[in-house]
């Protein structure tokens, strides 16, 4: 701190008083000003203001416009770009086959991709642009729940359905009063279902009674799953710790788990962090089962964790290399993805791929690409044969599909159990 005491005048005290008086005066002035303004505001309030009501976008052209509101940059950019690859591939396949059959006429998809930079305000703006200016039939995205809920008011006003490949919050598709959002859909599991399945599996199949939770605390995905697991797990939760996306060091938490005598660890989060947790846990000599969810079903997980460490690891997933052997749709997708992008398809791409095809199915069923019709069609999807399983949209616009638990041993999927 600067040494200023010596520089002060004795008279300062008087000035202080003067200060106070002037402060009050300026306050008075402000209040008068405020009153004037408030009065003006009243006048404003009296007059009618513009408002928009949508009756949905009609599609009369020779193409069907589908918008993509996606996290291509920012915190969730990695996941968003994986989804974009899946969307792009689905659209290319549909267009190569001539397009979508709308009432006997084949129409190609005109894909409009926009970036919401993982920000809620941008997501709302992108949705408004897609729904009102580009007049799309449907929107695919966003990847995250928060960006998704931010677009809901705008798409609802414009009556354009949006199908998110990966927004998992249970309330994502619901209004405040518990009724379903008419234009909001998702292609993935919601947290309660997946967390509950993981809890049952850990208790019944792994026979674990003392579980430590280490969840992602920067997304609704991690906290939602952790909560669901905690509520539905019959054993004891011995520790409940969290990390934030981008964290790299989990040694301290893992060491604290050691003394808690946990016989399994539940790690709701995405592969980028869970991979590191597996790596560091095994390095630290923690060899108990590690249970996770579909956020870690990514080929990159094993690479980050190290093949040797990825043993005794379990995760819930709708989609996998193992399942693809039994499911011809998935097998075809895996092969095409490998050919197009030279990598093993991640879950996010598979979910996004399914989302596009669900929109296609909805348009074909309704024989119309008008946005309101697409919404109605999406709500009625039943037994849709997707890459991520047979999908039925339930009354709350959630995707119902079978869930499987895969087991990793030395980085390879060795077992896949269906859970009822």
């Amino acid at each position: 701190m600067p040494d200023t005491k010596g520089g002060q005048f004795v008279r300062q005290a008087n000035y202080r008083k003067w200060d106070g008086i002037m402060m009050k005066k300026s306050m008075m002035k402000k209040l008068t000003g405020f009153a004037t303004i408030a009065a003006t505001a009243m006048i404003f309030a009296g007059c009618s203001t513009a408002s928009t009501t949508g009756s949905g976008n009609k599609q009369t052209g020779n193409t069907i416009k589908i918008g993509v509101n996606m996290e291509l940059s920012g915190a969730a950019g990695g996941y968003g770009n994986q989804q974009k690859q899946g969307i792009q591939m689905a659209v290319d396949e549909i267009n190569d086959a001539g397009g979508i059959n709308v009432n006997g006429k084949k129409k190609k998809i005109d894909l409009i991709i926009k970036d919401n930079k993982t920000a809620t305000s941008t997501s709302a703006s992108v949705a408004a642009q897609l729904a009102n200016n580009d007049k799309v039939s449907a929107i695919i995205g966003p990847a995250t729940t928060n960006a998704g809920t931010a677009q809901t008011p705008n798409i609802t006003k414009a009556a354009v359905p949006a199908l998110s490949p990966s927004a998992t919050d249970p309330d994502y598709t619901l209004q405040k009063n518990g009724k379903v959002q008419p234009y909001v859909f998702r292609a993935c599991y919601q947290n309660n279902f997946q967390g509950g399945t993981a809890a049952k599996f850990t208790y019944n199949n792994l026979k674990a009674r003392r579980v430590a939770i280490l969840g992602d605390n920067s997304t609704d995905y991690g906290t939602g799953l952790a909560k669901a697991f905690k509520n539905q797990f019959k054993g004891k939760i011995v520790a409940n710790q969290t990390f934030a996306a981008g964290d790299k060091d989990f040694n301290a938490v893992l060491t604290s788990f050691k003394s808690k005598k946990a016989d399994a660890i539940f790690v709701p989060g995405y592969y980028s962090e869970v991979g590191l947790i597996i790596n560091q846990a095994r390095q630290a000599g923690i060899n108990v089962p590690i249970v996770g969810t579909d956020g870690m079903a990514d080929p990159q997980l094993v690479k980050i964790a190290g093949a040797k460490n990825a043993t005794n690891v379990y995760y819930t997933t709708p989609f996998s290399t193992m399942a693809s052997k039994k499911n011809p749709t998935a097998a075809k997708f895996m092969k095409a993805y490998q050919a197009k992008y030279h990598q093993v398809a991640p879950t996010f791409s598979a979910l996004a791929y399914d989302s596009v095809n669900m929109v296609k199915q909805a348009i074909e069923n309704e024989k119309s690409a008008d946005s309101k019709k697409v919404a109605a069609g999406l709500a009625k999807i039943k037994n849709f044969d997707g890459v991520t399983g047979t999908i039925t949209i339930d009354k709350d616009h959630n995707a119902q599909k079978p869930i499987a638990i895969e087991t990793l041993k030395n980085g390879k999927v060795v077992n896949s159990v269906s859970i009822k």
Partner: protein
Amino acid sequence: MTILKANFKYNVSWLIIMVAGFYLMNTLMLMGIIDSFIENMLVVIGINIILATGLNLVIGFAGQFSLGHAGFMAIGAYATAIITTNSATAGGFYTSIVVGVIIAIIAAIIVGVPTLRLRGDYLAIATMGAAEIIRIIINNLQITNGPSGMFNIPQFATWPVVYIMVCVTTILIANFVRSRAGRAIKSVREDEIAAESAGINTTNWKLAAFVFGAATAAIAGSLDASYLQTIAPTNFGIMESISILIIVVLGGVGSLTGSVVAAVVLGILDTALQNFGTLRMVIYAAALILIMIFKPTGLLGSHELSFKHLFSGTKRKGRVRS
């Protein structure tokens, strides 16, 4: 009293312009020229104007480098989200703004009293830390619904509400800056020791500016929550504080007009870049660097657009207090 009258004249002129602007926008909206997409952009710009002018008061006029603006914004946003979800009335909304402002003021005092003793980058890093603490607390509370954030917040902050709020806060800040209080805080910026020896209680005035800035940030947060109907703790991180700072510096530190201009420019740029996908932030970053290198004092430097200037033709600085 003469100043009051003089200021009154200019305030009325501004008010007329603001009313005219409102009717112009409203007409364009009724005609369908401004659709909900542009409206969305305008609202975001409006909220950014409130944030940037508030921060400019702290940085540009009081000379206190604060990097914690987003924390106070979060307080307002969550106040509105929590209150309006429980009482979805216009009264609830306005109450929530007031509550947000009060909590933000209290928080600003708690943060400001100790940290405003620091200066420059140390103050910046301390305020950034304080804002992060606020965010982390929100992230872990039950009432705020943790990291999932809150959604389905009823919308009361429609376009006219945001517009009026922008006008109100801008007029308040502009008048504050031009009052005796404004000159006091500017003297603190210019030379703290000289100001103190001239009898100005620097600590109090610094705190006054800081608290005022925090209060406007809370208002902006309330509007943001109510307009977007969705908030999450991640919206109020360090990056948000930095993006507000960018608006202030780009417009010109110490120029309220500059903040407004920069908020508009960046708002349009940001919207236009939506189509560029991953390249978007690359272009944004490159534009930022280039503007800063070629226009280091910001778009407007410390110049203001002022009627006083236009009416009398004399320099603002040359005005003598009567």
